[in-house]
């Protein structure tokens, strides 16, 4: 499959423009009504298809880029779609689409919900497709602001408090990120990420390490890595299932993507220098998340702590670095998004159909073979095998321990949630409510049995991380 090769400006701006324009129109309509609701689903689906087409073009025939306003490259503000960006964009928008369909089927509660979700999707696509460091920050803020609003969805007091905490903590993170970007601008004199990477590759590690630390803190906060995870349980536990799916399946990807993009190209040498610290943090996060998840009872609590553990796997792979490490990180992030989408979208449903979808997601988190999660774990093992034997033995041991605990907590949860207790009446939710989760679960199964497309896409993505400097014309 190669995709329809439209002219570059159209190819790259359609996935951005469709959700935005539709979001602006929807802001004027009542999203609870049937017409606007399904219009939103249609528009996001159209944007998703445009993105899928862009992804096919990029993965098969290389990056596409345009410069706004016809300025020469390096002066004007550029949009650039490479394999890493499009893979993350497709997965994130896919999960958001599933969440929007779930909400449309179960009933939208806010008139602005579809509009905010679509505007957020537009911002998210922008984050993954921009090649300008400051625009990265602007799109990041657009996506995050929409997420702050969405976290308060349904307006239970707990949810509004969660949204407030989420907003404060993440604003602090994005302020740090802004300071880092301006420092990079002051040092290199450009905001174009390719040019910045070219300049920083000739700089000393010592002069970059402070900026790299700020960037690392900003994105780890987003991803929910161990020392930065404190906000995550409160927000995920409180929020509505579809919003939790968006937060952990789509927005957390900004963290993984940012760490790969900035760590893999701009701070390439700092990454190699700081690898032991990153690997240690990844390992701590993995064990901490798993231990906490085992000791929790509520579904969304277990999933929230499990998200911290899963962030650890991604961090481990990024810390190892190199083509194999980046491939593992990209593959794991993609599969993790799908897992979280399935699990959160079924977390408040009941009955056999929802239970089946949940079980597939649970198997996938645990990394049991017929599911895609196995593939993710395998790529991480491959990356770990690159380390010196002593270290790799310890880390593989920890990863195996983490996986074993994830089997335990996922099935404890399944048992509590979907197997009716004695004397209890099992009330099934309408099967239509499980459709979005079932589609995502089917994808997990498909990628488990037929992993070629996923491996092809994520190895292209992994290669795009390191090769950015070499690709410069």
């Amino acid at each position, binding site marked *: 499959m190669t995709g329809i090769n439209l002219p570059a400006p159209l190819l790259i701006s359609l996935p951005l423009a469709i959700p935005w324009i539709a979001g602006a129109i929807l802001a004027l309509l009542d999203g609870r009504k049937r017409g606007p609701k399904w219009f939103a689903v249609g528009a996001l689906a159209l944007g998703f298809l445009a993105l899928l087409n862009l992804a096919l073009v990029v993965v098969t025939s290389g990056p596409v880029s345009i410069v706004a306003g016809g300025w020469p490259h390096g002066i004007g503000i550029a949009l650039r779609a490479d394999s890493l960006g499009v893979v993350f964009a497709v997965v994130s928008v896919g999960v958001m689409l599933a969440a929007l369909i779930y909400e449309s089927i179960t009933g939208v509660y806010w008139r602005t919900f579809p509009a905010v979700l679509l505007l957020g999707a537009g911002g998210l696509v922008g984050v993954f497709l921009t090649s300008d460091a400051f625009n990265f920050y602007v799109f990041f803020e657009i996506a995050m602001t929409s997420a702050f609003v969405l976290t308060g969805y349904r307006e239970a007091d707990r949810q*509004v408090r969660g949204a407030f905490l989420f907003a404060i903590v993440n604003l*602090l993170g994005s302020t740090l990120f802004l300071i880092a970007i301006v420092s990079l*601008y002051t040092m290199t004199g450009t905001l174009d990420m390719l040019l910045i990477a070219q300049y920083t590759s000739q700089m000393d590690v010592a002069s970059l390490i402070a900026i790299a630390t700020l960037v690392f803190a900003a994105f780890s906060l987003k991803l929910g890595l161990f020392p930065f995870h404190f906000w995550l349980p409160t927000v995920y536990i409180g929020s509505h299932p579809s919003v939790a799916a968006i937060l952990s399946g789509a927005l957390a990807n900004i963290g993984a993507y940012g760490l790969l993009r900035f760590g893999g190209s701009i701070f390439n040498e700092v990454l190699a220098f700081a690898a032991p610290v990153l690997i240690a943090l990844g390992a701590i996060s993995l064990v901490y998340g798993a231990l906490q998840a085992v000791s929790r009872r509520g579904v969304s609590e277990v999933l929230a702590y499990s998200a911290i553990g899963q962030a650890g796997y991604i961090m481990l792979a990024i810390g190892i670095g190199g083509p194999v490490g980046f491939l593992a990180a990209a593959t794991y992030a993609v599969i993790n998004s799908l897992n979280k989408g399935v699990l959160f979208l079924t977390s408040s449903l009941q009955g056999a159909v929802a239970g089946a979808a949940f079980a597939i997601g649970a198997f996938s988190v645990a990394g049991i073979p017929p599911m895609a999660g196995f593939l993710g774990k395998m790529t991480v093992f491959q990356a770990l095998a690159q380390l010196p034997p002593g270290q790799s033995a310890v880390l593989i041991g920890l990863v195996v321990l983490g996986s074993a605990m994830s089997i335990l907590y996922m099935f404890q949860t399944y048992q509590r949630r979907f197997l009716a207790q004695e004397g209890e009446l099992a009330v099934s939710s309408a099967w239509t409510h499980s459709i979005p989760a079932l589609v995502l679960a089917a994808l997990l199964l498909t990628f488990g049995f037929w992993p070629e497309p996923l491996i092809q896409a994520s190895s292209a993505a992994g290669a795009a991380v390191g090769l950015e400097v070499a690709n410069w014309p």
Partner: protein
Amino acid sequence: MIVLSAAVVAIVFAAGTFLLLQRDLFRIVAGILTISNAATLFIIASGLSRGQAPILPLDSGPVSDPVSQALALTALVIGFAVAALLLVMVYRLYLSHHSLDAQAIQTSERRSAALQRREGDPYVEEVPEEEIDEDPGEAQEREVTTP
């Protein structure tokens, strides 16, 4: 000049951090806004030069960097939008709890979750565990002792 602007940014950032660690929601918002203003100051300081216009003059003289000024403006606009959103959230929390104290809001939230559970309200979404364990009676007693 560099030392002076660095010192100003540091003091504003520190003041913001201090406010952020308070229990009063309004102070938290003021804190995060102060911190984002420290970032704006940092941007301006990074392109600081004396007396030149940030556009290309007709005679070839020195110019100030227009990019950092554009960045500062954009950051201010984003900060404004987010400030509005945060204040709306604080107002919403105030409406339902009649308090701006983070601790008091948490207590009152647990109490209402426990009450809802006791009344068997079917629309209660999953309640986190620590709230389930809370005995409604006990929560009410605590409310009495809290001033």
